[in-house]
C-alpha cells in the first residue's frame, strides 16, 4: 500500500506547478511531524508542546554536520533523528514521572527556552541561523528536474518510510503496551508492562521522528534559525494531530493538508471580504485555533474515527432491525 502511494505521488509531482510541489513537500513534512504527535499523545497518552523544539534539535544537528563535515545528506538526516531521539529520551525520562498538565507545562517551557540557546553558541549561528543546503538534484534525473521537486521527493520518501515504521510500531507489542498504559496505568502494570519504560520509549521514538521532520523542514526553508521553530509550530502540530484524529494514524494526511491549506483559504476569504491587512495576516491563526477548539468539543476523536463510529452504529442498527423482522 505504501509502495502504491509512492507511485501515485511520483506521477502527481510531474503534473503540478512549482508552488504546489513546494506545498506538497511541506505537507509531507507535516505528515511526519504529526505522526510523531499521534504516536506520543494519541497512543501513549503524553502531551508535548515542545515538539517544535525537538524539531529544532534535529534541524540544527543536520545543519551543523552538513556545514562542518560536509557529510552526505542521508547521513545528516540519520543524525538528526538520533540527536532528537537523545533529546527526547532525556525529556522522556523526566516526562515519565509527570502526567497531563504538568507534562504539557514542562514541554511548553522547553519550547520557549530551547530556541534561545542558538544565540549562546557561535556554531549555531545566532538569530540569522545556519544555511542548510541539500544540494542540487542528481543530474541523472534530467535537466528540468527542479529543486523543489527534489525537496518533494526527499520529503515524500521520508514520509512514506516513517509512516510505515510508525504504523508497524503501533500495531506491534509496543503499540499495545502504549495504549494499555494510556487507558489504565495500574492495570497495564498488573499485566506486566513496565509503563515508565514504555513511556520513555514512546517519547524517544516520537522525538526521533520529530527530529527528522525538523531536518526536512529546514531543507525546504533552506536555513535553520530560532525563528523557524516558534512556539506556534508546536501548537499547530498539535492542532494537526487533533484534526487528523489523535488516536488514528490513518487521518494524518487530513491534518497535514489542512495546516498547509488554511493560510491559502484564509487569504482568499480575506480578499473576497476586502478586509484590512491586520485581518488578513491573522485570519489563518484564528481559523486554526478556532478549528482546534471546535474539533475538541464536537469531534474529539477526529473525523476518521467519528465516521467509523457512525458506520459501526449504523451497521448495528441495521442488524438489529433485521433481527426484529424475523
Amino acid at each position, binding site marked *: 500500500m505504501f509502495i502504491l502511494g509512492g507511485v501515485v505521488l511520483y506521477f502527481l509531482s510531474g503534473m503540478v506547478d512549482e508552488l504546489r510541489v513546494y506545498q506538497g513537500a511541506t505537507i509531507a513534512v507535516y505528515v511526519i511531524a504529526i505522526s510523531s504527535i499521534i504516536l506520543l499523545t494519541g497512543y501513549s497518552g503524553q502531551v508535548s508542546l515542545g515538539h517544535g523544539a525537538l524539531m529544532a534539535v534535529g534541524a540544527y544537528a543536520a545543519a551543523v554536520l552538513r556545514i562542518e563535515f560536509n557529510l552526505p545528506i542521508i547521513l545528516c538526516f540519520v543524525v538528526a533523528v538520533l540527536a532528537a531521539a537523545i533529546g527526547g529520551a532525556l525529556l522522556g525520562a523526566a516526562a515519565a514521572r509527570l502526567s497531563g498538565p504538568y507534562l504539557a507545562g514542562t514541554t511548553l517551557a522547553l519550547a520557549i527556552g530551547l530556541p534561545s540557546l542558538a544565540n549562546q553558541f557561535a556554531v549555531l549561528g545566532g538569530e540569522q541561523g545556519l544555511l542548510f543546503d541539500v544540494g542540487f538534484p542528481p543530474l541523472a534525473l534530467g535537466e528540468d528536474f527542479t529543486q523543489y521537486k527534489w525537496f518533494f521527493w526527499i520529503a515524500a520518501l521520508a514520509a512514506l518510510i516513517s509512516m510505515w515504521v510508525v504504523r508497524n510500531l503501533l500495531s506491534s507489542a509496543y503499540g499495545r503496551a502504549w495504549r494499555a498504559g494510556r487507558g489504565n496505568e495500574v492495570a497495564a502494570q498488573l499485566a506486566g508492562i513496565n509503563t515508565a519504560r514504555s513511556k520513555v520509549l514512546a517519547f524517544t521514538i516520537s522525538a526521533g521522528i520529530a527530529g527528522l521532520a525538523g531536518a526536512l523542514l529546514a531543507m525546504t526553508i533552506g536555513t535553520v534559525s530560532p525563528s523557524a521553530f516558534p512556539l506556534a509550530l508546536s501548537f499547530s502540530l498539535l492542532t494537526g494531530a487533533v484534526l487528523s484524529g489523535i488516536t488514528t494514524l490513518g487521518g494524518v494526511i487530513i491534518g497535514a493538508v489542512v495546516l498547509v491549506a488554511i493560510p491559502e483559504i484564509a487569504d482568499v476569504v480575506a480578499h473576497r471580504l476586502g478586509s484590512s491587512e491586520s485581518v488578513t495576516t*491573522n485570519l489563518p491563526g484564528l481559523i486554526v485555533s478556532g478549528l482546534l477548539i471546535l474539533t475538541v468539543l464536537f469531534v474529539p476523536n477526529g473525523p476518521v474515527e467519528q465516521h467509523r463510529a457512525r458506520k459501526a452504529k449504523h451497521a448495528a442498527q441495521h442488524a438489529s432491525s433485521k433481527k426484529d423482522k424475523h
Partner: protein
Amino acid sequence: MQLLNTLLIGITAGSIYALMAIAFVLVWRSTRVVNFAQAGMALLSTYFGYEAVSRIGSFWVALPVAMIGGALFAALVELILMRLLVKHASSGPIAGVAPIIATLGLLGVIRSVISMIWGGQDLRIVAPISNNGFTINGSTLVFSPLKLLVLVVVAVLLILLTILFQKTNLGLALRASAHAPEIARLSGVRVDSVRTLGWALAGAAGAVAGLFQTVNGNGNFSPDSIEFSLLLVSGFIAAVIGGLDSLLGAVLGGLFLGITISFVLMYVSSGLFFIAPFIILLIVLFIRPQGIIGVKAGRRA
C-alpha cells in the same frame, strides 16, 4: 549592594509571577484544568487597561478596568467553553488532553483577535510613577518607587484574597467546591456558579499580572511579545513549585522562582533568561515533585 539589588529585582518579578501562579491555582482548584490561555487573558486585560489609559489618562482607573474586564472575560470562558468541554469531551481516549488542547486553542484565538483589533505593533503603557531607583547614601539602587508599588499592590491583593477565602461564606463555598464538589453540592453550595467565580477571580489576578509585567518591563507590549509567553511559563512553574493547589504555595513559588532567576542571570549568565525557568522546573520536579506545599498524590492529575 549588588546582592541587595539582585534580591529586590527577584522579589518584584517574583511577586508578579506569584499573581499569575494564583490565577493558575484558582482555575485549577475550581475546574481541575490548567488554563494555558491564562497569559492570553492577561494580555487581553492589558489591552483593556491600555484603552482605559488612553481614554481617561490615569493608570489608577486602568487597573480596575483591566481587572473587571479580565474577570468578566474569564467568567465567560468558563460559562461557554469549559461547560461545553465537560459535556462533550469528558470521556474517551482524549479526555485527559482535551482541556489542554482547548485552552491552547483559546490562547490562539485570543492572540489572533487582539492582532485583528489592535494590530500587531507595539503599544505602550506609561508607568504611573518613576522607575528610577531610590538613592541611599549616594548610591542608586535598582529598586524604584514603581517596584515598591508593585510589591504593595500585590501584597494588598493577597491580603484581600486571603480574607475572602478564610473569613467569608463565599470563601468557604470556594474551598468546599474545590476539595469535595459532590459534598458541597449536597450541602447546598451552587458549585457551578462558584466555579465561574473561581475563573473570574483568576482573570482579575491575571489582569494585574499582565499590567505590572508590562510597566515593570519597558512599558511596551504586543500580541507576540515574549513577555507574555514568559509570564505564562513562569506563572505555571511558580504554581507547580507551590503544589498547584495552594494559594500560599503559589506566592512562595513565585517569589522563589523570581529570586532564583534573578540570581542566575546576575551570577551565572544573562543568556540563560529563557532556558532558566525550564531548568528550574525540571530540578523542582525531580527533587520535590509534590511541590513545596502539597500532597504527593496531587501530582498525578
